[in-house]
């Protein structure tokens, strides 16, 4: 079975194409969104999703979120003595989503369409593919998040649409795509973005704004990782509160003492002005590349949880001189779009007429050297072969000549990016061909880049003089190891003990109660403590009916507490 997955920085979701429509699959807690969070304990006990997120407050050192921001880098995370790569962590979330689909349909999904930010580079995309494979899913296609959102938006009524702009600000990444729809064709005209800008950054701004207002000595007594975790959790809560009111309290509990500072929407906006400015540049770039002016955009479609922030909406209204369209569900659209793409790939009903064309978000090229008129060599110059925002699939060829006399071989380093100096771009791989020794410039080498719809870059190098050809489907060190690596990762993850699905609810509730216990002081804490003990007692009895009753009781208690307090 083929499913569509939105693997997000903050939340993930899975959806299916069923009965001619995309449908979200709820998780074990009955929710459509699963937090992208993982927590481990000594001995390999593992939490994924909401339970893991709740453990962030109680066990910050063994819990991780926002690992999507590490995708494509070599960094790893060590939780309770187990070292995990960002791919491993993503795979754990993917596996939990696959479990949900299996529970809902009775079939284990084997293939997936996974969404990635349009502005993810090749490394980040490959890491995402690996994560899918570690989770036991064949990744049939990676689809850009704004493209998926556009699909979900456009397929609501299947009508033609003049170019519109999808503004996708998620937890950790920011994408802008300009999309047009006609006659069942969904055409992405241009994409731009910033893969290091998202809701998390706004949280950080909030933390920086508030930290000086909180008593420093009380904060300093907290261990560093715990302080960071508490502050960022509190920041997210405050940010949410600010979407509905003009001011909100930022509260953390340190050593049983609640520390509170008041934040106004205005103060937040001012503190976030640097981030808001960064929203502008990708929009300008996408418009320029697609030769579309702001006025002729038919709509500004908001996607991603961070677009709920009033500061962002205000900035957008100013930028575009009109109100953005918020009819799309900002958290669901991407997963629904992924399910539509899955439906397309598997020939789903009602999608026969639909075709999607997307663009290559980055410029692709090789590193070259030249000699200038003064005889000086300049190397590391980026020679673009496929310009950014070219419709894919695309195949382009460039000719290069040797620079040295009797050069024996030519090495092409393949890069992705927009800087003239290759060192500032992302290196994707390298390819070397032998050439016949001849005077400089007499040996020509043809380099062909082919970039297909699933985002694979294929490099062909041809030396016409000798008829020699070399081909490279772009792989880097990570990929070369990948087969063995993936098997090993899978084995490592299998050792971790994920809670059985029927316990998921209890596990999540425990984590939530523990978080609440930590977050309160005084009599409220005693009440929660009592509830916790009772629930644990019920669990020990192993009678499903008693457990269900206790669960209901504790849930009601926690719900009530949540409505009462800023926490």
């Amino acid at each position, binding site marked *: 079975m083929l499913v569509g997955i939105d693997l997000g920085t903050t939340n993930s979701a899975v959806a299916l194409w069923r009965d001619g429509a995309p449908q979200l699959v709820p998780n074990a807690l009955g929710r459509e969104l699963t937090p992208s969070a993982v927590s481990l304990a000594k001995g390999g006990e593992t939490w994924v999703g909401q339970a893991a997120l709740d453990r962030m407050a109680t066990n910050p050192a063994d819990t991780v979120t926002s690992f999507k921001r590490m995708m494509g880098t070599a960094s790893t995370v060590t939780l309770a003595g187990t070292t995990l790569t960002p791919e491993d962590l993503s795979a754990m979330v993917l596996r939990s989503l696959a479990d949900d689909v299996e529970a809902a349909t009775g079939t284990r999904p084997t293939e997936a369409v996974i969404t990635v930010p349009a502005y993810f580079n090749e490394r980040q995309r490959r890491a995402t593919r690996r994560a899918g494979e570690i989770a036991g899913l064949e990744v049939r296609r990676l689809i850009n998040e704004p493209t998926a959102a556009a699909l979900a938006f456009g397929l609501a009524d299947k009508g033609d649409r003049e170019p519109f702009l999808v503004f996708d600000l998620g937890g950790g990444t920011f994408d802008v795509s300009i999309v047009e729809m*006609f*006659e*069942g*064709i969904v055409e992405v005209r241009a994409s731009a973005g910033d893969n290091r800008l998202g809701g998390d950054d706004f949280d950080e701004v909030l933390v920086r704004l508030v930290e000086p207002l909180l008593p420093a000595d009380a904060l300093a007594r907290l261990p560093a990782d715990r302080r960071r975790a508490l502050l960022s959790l509190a920041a997210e809560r405050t940010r949410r509160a600010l979407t509905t009111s003009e001011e909100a309290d930022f509260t953390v509990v340190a050593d049983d003492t609640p520390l509170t500072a008041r934040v106004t929407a205005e103060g937040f906006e001012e503190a976030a002005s640097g981030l808001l*400015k960064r929203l*502008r*540049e990708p*929009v*300008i770039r996408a*418009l*320029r590349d697609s*030769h579309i*002016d*702001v*006025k002729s955009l038919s709509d500004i479609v908001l996607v991603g949880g961070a677009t709920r922030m009033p500061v962002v909406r205000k900035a957008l209204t*100013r*930028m*575009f*001189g009109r109100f953005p369209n918020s009819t799309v569900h900002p958290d669901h659209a991407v997963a629904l779009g992924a399910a539509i793409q899955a439906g397309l790939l598997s020939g789903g009903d009602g999608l026969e*007429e639909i*075709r999607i*064309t997307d663009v290559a978000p980055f*410029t692709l090229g090789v590193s070259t050297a*030249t*000699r*200038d*008129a*003064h*005889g*000086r*060599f*300049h190397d590391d*110059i*980026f020679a*673009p072969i496929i310009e950014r925002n070219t*419709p894919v*699939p*695309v*195949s382009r060829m460039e000719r290069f*000549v*040797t*620079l*040295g*006399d*009797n050069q024996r071989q030519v090495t092409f380093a393949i890069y992705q990016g*927009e*800087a*003239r*100096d290759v060192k*500032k771009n992302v290196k994707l791989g390298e390819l070397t061909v032998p050439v016949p020794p*001849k*005077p*400089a*410039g*007499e040996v020509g080498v043809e380099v062909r880049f*082919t970039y*297909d*719809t*699933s985002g694979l870059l294929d490099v062909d190098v041809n030396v016409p003089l000798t008829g020699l050809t070399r081909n490279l489907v772009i792989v880097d060190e990570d990929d070369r190891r990948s087969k063995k690596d993936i098997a090993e990762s899978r084995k490592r993850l299998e050792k971790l003990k994920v809670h059985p699905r029927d316990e998921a609810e209890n596990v999540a509730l425990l984590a939530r109660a523990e978080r609440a216990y930590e977050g309160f002081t005084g009599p409220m804490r005693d009440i929660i403590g009592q509830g916790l003990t009772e629930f644990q007692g019920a669990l020990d009895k192993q009678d499903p009916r008693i457990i269900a009753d206790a669960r209901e009781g504790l849930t009601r208690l926690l719900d009530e507490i949540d409505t009462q307090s800023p926490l």
Partner: protein
Amino acid sequence: MIRRAFPWSRLGIDPTSDKAAIRKAYADVLRSINPDEDIAGFADLRRARDQALREAVWLAEREAAGDDDTGDEDEDEGELYGLGALDGDDDGDPDWGGSDWGEDADGGGWDIAPAFTPGEMRAPEPQLTEAQQRAQAAWEQLLQILYPGGQPSDNAVTHSEFEIGLAALDVLLARAEEADLEEHEALDGALADLFARTWPRSAPFVEPANVAFGWLDEAGVLEERAALRFLNQRIKGMRFHDKVQQPEHPLHKAWVELSRPGRAGVLDRLRVNRLDVHKLLVGMRERYPELESYFDPERVASWEGAGAASAEGVSNAGRGFAGAVLFVVLFFALIRAIGALSGVGGDTPADNVPPPPSQLLEPTAAETDAQVAQVFGPGTDMVGVREIDPVFADQLSLNIRYSKVNGGLLAFVRNRAVQAGDAAKFEELVALGELKRIWLRAALDNPAQCKNVMAGDFRSLPLALGKAETAREQELLRRLLDAKLLGNRITKPATTFSIPGWAIDKMLKKSGLDIDELTLALKSPEHPKRCLVSLTLAEVVLAEPGRVSIDLLRAL
């Protein structure tokens, strides 16, 4: 049915102005192919669709022309943030080498229509909001400051001008912050363009705009706008200027020393590391030549050793310098700008504009002519030069003023000759090749000198030429002058070249090197035999210049 031509053939429809029909045809064909298996077909289809849509516009216009002449569309009637009446020709002033400001004009600010579409045929004045009116007024004020009296100015802004200009800029930047994308971009482009055009007068205003628009983020990007490519280098210079003010900066002492008035005394020389002063001067002239205006020329000259000769009688020259120094700065800026505009990345050879002199004497006409004759041979005077190439004549006369203190006019002209290669045709390239052969031969025994010659630096060390060579050099330089190659510094991006096999054979024979060493020397500028190899290459090529590629001639 008649046979259709591309793009209609690809779409399978007859020519039409109906865009919906074109889109439908495109969609139908797209559904019938698998783009991943037919990449060329897909590219072809996209091209057909795009071209058909363009032709449709044209067809529609033709159809419309039949029954209703709508007249010409008025463009940019009330241009927001334009140069207005200031600049008659929109192509920019000739100082900029006639370079067009860029293919990216559509992204730039000049031609952006006001943020309002003229509703009717005769929309009187575009309706500006109050904020826009204020911004427009501020723009005009800033324009007045930067183009005083409607004219470009070489003078730095005065303090009060700075205050007014900054206030105006503040209004504009605040407006940009509030404005929609279109106006924001128009302002961004217009300010970048204005500041680049009026540099260095615009210098004190650049940094606030950079902060507001994030100009420096665009530095080094493939499609960095031409104006920004120029300005960003200047901004980096100003950043350096700020950093060097910090006492912990390694060159801070040298900076403070050079910015003091008057000649350096014995105590100063003990206090400051000579090497640091040298490093500062060289590095700065290479990267941010405009910063030299912060230094006292007299002090600089005294550190450079030129002060010793002119010890007396300069104390009252102080005030007179300001204008001259600024003029030099402007001159720098123009040269840099031309380089930036024509897409030359990286560094240009050692700057050929002299450091500010320790004394400035207006040379007489006779002195000028004597100097010109020294370079181009008897029979050439300043009037003659001006007739041939007025742009170059201006540069030349400026250099003559300084020639006494900076290694001579000849160094300047030689440097210009080195850079003439890019625009030169075959005959001139041969002449140029011969010049280089003369210079290289004269420098062959001195590795440092040889390196200078290859880098285009003729100022650091004198080049000893015999009588015959001097005469020949004069003749060749005159030829380049006649071809008007000396005044322009528009350089094209570097090209690669190849050395044919027969030339390699001859070079091997002539130089006595083996093939590996020769290859190595050709590849690495630092190679000890580099000079010899370059000379040999020049000799071999010049023996039969018709047999080699123009690129090779150019690269000599």
